[in-house]
């Protein structure tokens, strides 16, 4: 997010899902799209059938590789070397869009100077991807009439996350693939309303619509609307919050609908931090692993029992409608928050979700024209500044949100943890088709449970042979932070030296192993790379 905001002035997906099929080339990097965003995966496959060239960059041989014209099997944590090398080839071979660079961007000289040394051969050494394959991929991407890029956590969950994103943005600007249909830079949001949570200011530094808390005018506007005084310094991010709980700087926490004990890196540390709190409130549908630590647990209704809106990954605001009555005494999160605010002496009056939405629209320029009535069956893409505005499917059309697109020169940097003698494997984590996040919902679904109900850590056949283990055997996986036991899937989807686990299963909580070392700018932890040892259990 921080990366795209620096490059373009907005952190959101630039184009829409509907445009995918008409792309002439697609680069998928760090996104196992067919499992994590299945319907977007369908579109990418259809684009290929319609003739698009597909480039997949991923340490694992994911399903999309079957459809790829070029597969770049890079070592985990070497994205920048690869992306810089692609830029290098594009510039060297005269495939850059000179006019676009000149008219719409700044700081190209710095990029050019930096990528100079990232020859395909140099990048091959770092990434393990053959130099010829890098050249081929660069040509496929840059020669296409219009090309789009898709990425997810495989790019962001690194200590270099923000720089990874900047390197992605560089490629799109270099080739003029911005602001036009079927192009752009498209971060796919993992959860149903990540985009909405960000838009709504559930972030330490911004109010709704990315209005900065440090901006006096913005603060004055919200202070007036809310009838309160507001603090003007950025708050703590999730990782810092937990650390601050550990150090007793944070004393009380309110956690709504999240399960950081399983979803955040280094679970043991998370547990210690939460244990140090004086007071913890957790609001959820179920007694999650995190809720177990709480002093008060508040029962929230499911999405099917309430009204509101979600924003999908392509900035489309869509309606959520109540189908069921609340179960037991559970309440909608907005009702609980309103009740608590009243207890705390704030003057909140909301009779329904729509009342809240109207307040949001009034305070948020990019949502100003959105009303419940207008959402219909199609929803509306923000920005939508007024009630006759049709919404904005494609961002940065004539100019970037920040004015000129900004190239950033970024360098490869090793992951925080690299394999060594004691921990010779790289663990990378992610999700699978049949489960979601920490499994709170999917593991309570009969069918999904029946199809898949345990971790099967992926291990390359060569490594399996060396360790003397076989499919379905149980192994002990250890990192500097802890160890878990998991059953095995022996598969060449992962290259030798790399193992893959999900974080869906509490019995084999992968985040006991992961490293909380984060990207200094985005504060996203390096969940995609940590060093582990694997032994027969």
């Amino acid at each position, binding site marked *: 997010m921080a990366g795209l905001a620096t490059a373009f002035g907005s952190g959101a997906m630039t184009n829409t899902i509907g445009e995918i099929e008409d792309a002439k080339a697609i680069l998928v990097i760090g996104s196992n799209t*067919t499992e994590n*965003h299945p*319907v977007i995966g369908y579109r990418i496959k259809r684009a290929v059938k319609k003739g698009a060239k597909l480039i997949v960059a991923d340490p694992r041989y994911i399903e999309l590789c079957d*459809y790829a014209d070029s597969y770049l099997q890079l070592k985990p944590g070497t994205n920048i070397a690869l992306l810089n090398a692609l830029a290098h080839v594009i510039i060297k071979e005269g495939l850059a869009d000179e006019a676009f660079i000149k008219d719409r961007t700044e700081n190209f000289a710095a990029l050019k100077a930096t990528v100079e040394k990232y020859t395909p051969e140099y990048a091959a050494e770092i990434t393990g991807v053959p130099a010829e394959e890098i050249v081929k991929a660069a040509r496929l991407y840059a020669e296409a009439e219009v090309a789009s890029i898709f990425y997810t956590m495989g790019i962001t969950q690194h200590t270099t996350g923000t720089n990874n994103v900047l390197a992605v943005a560089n490629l799109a600007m270099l080739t003029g693939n911005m602001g036009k249909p079927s192009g752009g830079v498209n971060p*796919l949001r*993992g959860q*149903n*309303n990540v985009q*909405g*949570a960000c838009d*709504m*200011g*559930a972030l*330490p530094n911004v109010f709704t619509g990315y209005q900065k808390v440090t901006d006096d005018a913005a603060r004055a506007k919200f202070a007036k609307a*809310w009838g*309160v*005084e507001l603090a003007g310094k950025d*708050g*703590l991010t*999730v990782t810092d*919050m937990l650390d601050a*709980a550990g150090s007793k700087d*944070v*004393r009380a*926490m309110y956690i709504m609908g*999240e399960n950081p004990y399983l979803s*955040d890196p280094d679970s043991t540390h998370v547990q210690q931090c939460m244990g140090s709190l004086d007071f913890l*409130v957790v609001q959820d*549908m179920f007694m999650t692993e995190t809720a177990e630590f709480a*002093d*008060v*647990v508040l*029962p929230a209704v*499911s*999405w*099917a029992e*309430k009204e509101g809106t*979600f924003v999908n990954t*392509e900035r489309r605001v869509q309606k*959520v*409608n109540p189908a*069921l009555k609340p*179960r037991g005494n*559970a309440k909608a*999160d*907005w009702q609980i928050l309103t009740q*608590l605010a009243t*207890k*705390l002496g*704030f003057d*909140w009056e909301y009779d329904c979700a729509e009342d*809240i939405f109207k307040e*949001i629209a009034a305070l948020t320029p990019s949502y100003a024209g959105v009303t419940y009535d207008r959402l219909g069956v199609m929803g509306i893409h923000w920005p939508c500044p007024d009630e006759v505005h049709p919404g904005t499917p494609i961002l940065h059309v004539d100019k970037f949100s920040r004015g000129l697109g900004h190239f950033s020169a970024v360098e490869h940097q090793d992951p925080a943890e690299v394999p060594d003698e004691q921990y010779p494997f790289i663990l990378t984590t992610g999700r699978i088709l*049949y489960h979601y996040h920490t499994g709170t*919902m999917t593991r*309570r*679904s009969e*069918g*999904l449970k*029946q199809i898949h109900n345990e971790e099967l850590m992926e291990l390359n056949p060569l490594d399996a042979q060396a360790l003397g283990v076989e499919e379905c055997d149980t192994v002990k996986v250890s990192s500097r932070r802890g160890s878990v036991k998991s059953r095995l899937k022996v598969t060449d989807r992962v290259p030798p030296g790399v193992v893959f686990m999900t974080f869906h299963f509490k019995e084999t909580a992968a985040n006991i192993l992961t490293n909380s070392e984060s990207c200094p700018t985005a504060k996203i932890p390096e969940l995609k790379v940590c060093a582990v040892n694997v032994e027969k259990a």
Partner: protein
Amino acid sequence: MTKVNITLNGQAVQVESGKTVLEAAQAVGIDIPTFCHDPELSKAGACRMCVVEVAGARNLPASCTTPVTEGMVIETESDRVINARKSILKLTWAGHPQDCLTCEKTGSCKLQDYSYRYDVDGSPYKGEVKEIPLDDTNPFFFRDLNKCILCGKCVRKCHEVNGAGAIDFMYRGFGTKVTTAFDDAIEESSCVFCGMCVDICPVGALTPKQGLNQGRAWEADKVLTTCPYCGSGCTFYLHVRDDKIVGVTPNFEGPMDGHLCVKGRFGWDFVDSPDRLKTPLIKKDGEFVEATWEEAMDLIASKFEGVRAQFGADAIAGLSSARTTNEENYLFQKLLRSMGTNNVDHCARL
């Protein structure tokens, strides 16, 4: 776009050239029956249910594959057309089990609806009824291929939309069926259980296991909503009867054209998982005990106020959620910020 002039059931209509007769008719609200047609799939022209009469043409062309031409005069419900459709229905019934009484599809079955529409009550032909064993091995849907009318939509959906290509036509003649590569159970195939084949099957050959015997299609309320799982934001209709979800149908008119994956299509039953939290809980001596909302709220308010008074507002922090609504995220940050701290975030970074 050039337009052509045609006459549809006596009505003069202008249509974009390149459209099919079926599309032209649909655009003006004329309903032509179809079995094998789906707007986003390649055209099969296989079932001939959609035939129409075109002045000057000797045969009855299939409207789903016939493009409009200038001056075309079309009748969609002439006697010839009706007779042709009746014969197709009768032929179909010759091999189709007549168990509408207990079939889950009753009420949303095209074979049943068209039989009603054209007054066909079975078949004069004595056909051989197939005896293919029911495939109920996967957790999501039944495959009763005895009811399959071989429209091929499931095959095309699976290949053209999903890309999984799990099923195809196999064998020939009477033995023809749509099945997996080695005629194995579906979970041995490349099927990813998106359910998109289930939702376009015109008859009761593919039936979701959820909601079995829990009501006919017309008895359920259909509530449009947005998927609670990934960020693709598929929308669909929840079918609700007696305050229970009994099924899902895609929003074919929506932005994703009705595409879904296994989680959205079949993964909603966590809603009534027996371990849902139904009342506030307060921890006393290490054990959770049930409390009223009033008690819980009083406790939280007094604790937050206490912490704020003693350690300052920044000793309070909150994690909002990428899974709750915009309205709730908005209120969450409003609450924390109103208490005087910007310590608010959510786990989207993760």
